[in-house]
């Protein structure tokens, strides 16, 4: 977790995006002029379906169009994306694979679908650690430590994805990131497939890891109530463009853009951050 200091950008900036434009054919599906995530910071991108928020998150990992075989051709990405010191737009596949998982980790929306159905959780953990050069006893202790840090029983590693609950699977995904030593978690709607009580567990885990270990989070969500409990800064996206951005407290208290106002007003009893503290 000390690698953030080594990054050429210094000052702990883990993600730096400037003038990012993602196009499919002629259509712009995401356009983000500026986005920074620093060490220990939580930045949220909010917006409705199709606003381009997930695309932005995937672009940061170089994963836009990774399944484009299914008919989406001609994904074009321009602008600057630097993640943990790596220029994602220009980097070769080997360099990208080097940061994926070990420095910038992904947490997906549907937790069980994100885990290989034919593989025990422990096997996935072991293979992922081995991929990044951690093997044997070191791998075992790292895995166990990470699983405990997300409040799971290490016994869970003997199970298959269909044998664990959604909340457990999602916390395991976070544990994978921890075990690999990721400095930032890119979480795509991490709670929207979960029950309300389970949502709270997952958010609590993320928040604690940020506070205790300085884990940065880039959170994509349509759930403003969730965002308000964890995010330091917020970007609001609509139809592929950023309509407003700023510190979370400010944005929720005094939304400038009409669309943001609409979103904020639509949330019943949005807990103000002051009240919560």
């Amino acid at each position, binding site marked *: 977790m000390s690698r953030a200091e080594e990054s050429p950008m210094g000052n702990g900036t883990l993600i730096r995006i400037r003038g990012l434009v993602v196009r499919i054919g002629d259509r712009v599906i*995401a356009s983000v002029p500026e986005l920074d995530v620093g060490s220990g910071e939580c930045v949220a991108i909010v917006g409705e379906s199709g606003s381009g928020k*997930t695309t932005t998150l995937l672009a940061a990992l170089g994963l836009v169009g990774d399944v484009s075989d*299914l008919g*989406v051709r001609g994904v074009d990405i321009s602008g600057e994306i630097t993640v943990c010191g790596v220029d994602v737009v220009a980097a070769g596949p080997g360099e990208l694979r080097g940061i994926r998982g070990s420095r910038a980790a992904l947490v997906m929306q549907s937790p069980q679908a994100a885990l290989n159905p034919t593989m025990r959780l422990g096997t996935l953990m072991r293979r992922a650690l081995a991929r990044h050069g951690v093997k044997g006893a070191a791998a075992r202790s790292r895995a166990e430590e990470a699983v405990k840090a997300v409040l799971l029983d290490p016994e869970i590693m003997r199970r298959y994805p269909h044998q664990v609950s959604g909340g457990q699977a999602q916390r395991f995904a976070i544990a994978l990131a921890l075990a690999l030593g990721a400095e930032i978690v890119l979480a795509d709607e991490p709670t929207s497939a979960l029950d309300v009580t389970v949502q709270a567990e997952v958010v609590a885990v993320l928040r604690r890891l940020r506070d205790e270990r300085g884990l940065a989070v880039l959170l994509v969500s349509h759930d403003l109530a969730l965002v308000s409990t964890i995010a330091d800064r917020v970007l609001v996206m609509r139809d592929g463009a950023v309509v407003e951005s700023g510190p979370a407290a400010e944005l929720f208290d005094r939304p400038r853009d009409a669309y943001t106002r609409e979103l904020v007003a639509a949330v019943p009893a949005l807990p103000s951050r002051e009240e919560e503290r």
Partner: protein
Amino acid sequence: MTAPVVPDAAGAATPALRRTPLRWLVGVDRLAVAGAALLALIVLAALLAPWIAPHPEDGGSATHPLEALLPPSAEHWFGTDQVGRDVLSRVLYGARTSLLIAVAVLAISGGVGVVLGVVAGYAGGWVRDVIMRVTDVFLAFPALLLSLALAVVLQPSVTTVIVAIAVTWWPWYARLTASVAASVATRAFVDSARCLGVPAPLIVFRHVLPNSLTPVLVQLSLDGGGVILTAAALSYLGLGAHEPTSEWGLMVQQGQSLFTTNWWVVTFPGLAILITAFAFNVLGEGLRARLTR
């Protein structure tokens, strides 16, 4: 899934099903076009056989003993067979037999299978159970096996081949249609038709059937090749077409003992089977790729 960038496999397949055949034919991929073109050529050759065959009378029972087993030449591009008939002419006439069998089998088995399948899929419950168990039984017989058994019962002829293969082929369409129809039957427009008091048969044939056809059409074009191969195999075993009909499998069988000495007698009819089955398969694969994308 928030971004429209990455349609998942299952999600993308559904809209394709909803489209009508004509609309998605506009965007078919190159493979399907190539298969269709090749198939069109073969169909054309079959239709025009009496006019383009260099020796049309050789498609039937003509014999020219003095010209037996001549190697390929300018006069006989594919050489001549044991009784002096022009192999090219017989191959062209053979296309008529093979395509006739294919079309007849697919029409019969497709028709029967789709009707039973759509009824099973729409009705569900015990109707579906009964129909599916019957298809299970028929599916337990590989097509060629049941055709063999039936071909023994019926006298060897082209009609026998058609009947035998059709009997073994319909369950595939019944199963396929049933599964598609079952999902179509749960769609909103079927519900609304039911609520409006539209009688069940009308719902089935007006609404469920047309919306279940696309995958069946793809399967039909994929199966054309299989039918051609099975028919040729039956004729090769002496259970199908017989002299003087021009049939590729029969031509291979009649010439097999001459393969080492007179290769052309066996090679060209075999290639004809291969190319025709290939055309069907390429077309079907192309359509399937389009459908499941």
